[in-house]
């Protein structure tokens, strides 16, 4: 195994994606605390990490758990990616077409999250799965269903 990179590199490379996902998963107010909980947990476990090939997937898995903890503490179910337009803006994306984002915002939560993570944060299926806490196949299906619905809405 190659040596683990300095944790600062991990933070530099993935902070924006983790923040974007948490923004969507718990909203603006909860995101900062969940972000810190995510990276503190990662920092605690980091020296013992066996495989550094998928650091982003690892971080997104932790972020997902922290988002669930956050919602449990407030006694409600997780609503992934509640504000896709904001997510895109925070990621330095070009201003999205209002109609498109309105249509994305109207999708069921998991489809909405899958579309936002794929096209807002440019994540592969496996990492969308990690962020949503589902199988890769389920992530792919949610993305597919979401896109199908968008095509119909915007046609």
């Amino acid at each position, binding site marked *: 195994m190659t*040596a*683990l*990179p*300095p*944790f*600062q*590199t991990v*933070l530099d490379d993935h*902070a*924006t994606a983790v*923040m974007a996902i948490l923004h969507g998963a718990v909203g*603006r107010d909860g*995101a*900062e605390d969940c*972000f*810190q909980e995510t*990276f*503190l947990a990662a*920092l*605690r476990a*980091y*020296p013992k990490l066996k495989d550094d090939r998928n650091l982003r997937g690892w971080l997104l898995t932790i972020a997902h758990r922290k988002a669930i903890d956050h919602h449990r503490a407030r006694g409600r179910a997780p609503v992934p990616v509640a504000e896709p337009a904001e997510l895109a803006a*925070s990621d330095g994306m070009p201003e999205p077409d209002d109609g498109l984002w309105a249509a994305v915002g109207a999708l069921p939560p998991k489809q909405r999250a899958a579309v936002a993570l794929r096209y807002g944060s440019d994540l592969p299926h496996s990492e969308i799965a990690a962020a949503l806490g589902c199988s890769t196949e389920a992530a792919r299906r949610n993305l597919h269903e979401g896109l199908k619905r968008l095509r119909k809405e915007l046609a």
Partner: protein
Amino acid sequence: MSTATAKAIEGLKARAADEGLLDVAYTTTDSPFGPLLLAKTRRGLVRVGLPNQDSDELLVDLAERVSPRVLETPNELDEARRELDLYFEGKLDSFDLPLDWRLSGGFRQKVLRAINRIPYGQTRSYTEMARKAGNERAVRAAGTACGSNPIPLVVPCHRVLRTGGAFGGYAGGLPMKEALLQLEGVLDESPAS
């Protein structure tokens, strides 16, 4: 990166320090010779990177040899930065910083600890350093120890010269060694090398 993310990162680093998760804290700082990398552990200053050394490589090395919990936390290095600034202004002749010697083992560490006792504005030979470290004949090894000094400037390997006064080497380049000796008043403006 958005300001919200930057703010969250700042808070994260403060919490990491509070929870004892900051194994290696580092920053870069300006000097008359160019940017320096400063890194410390809970024991003390562990690494000073000179301007001609690759900071990224030094950080990867620290991650491997000390701990991968390496974070850029400038405020942790405030005191080191303050003392170095004063040193470069010629207003400080003795550093008062805890040091972490762990990157140097055995004979090398003995040589470096001997170097650390050379007073400001004075020079010693590699032979003397070898003797102080307990093996007068290991002059070449003493030279290697100087060359691999992980904490240059603060551990003043620039004060070690060849017997007879020739400069020897310096990890930061000979012009830097010369300038440091001038700063300390060892050399006049046109030294022989």
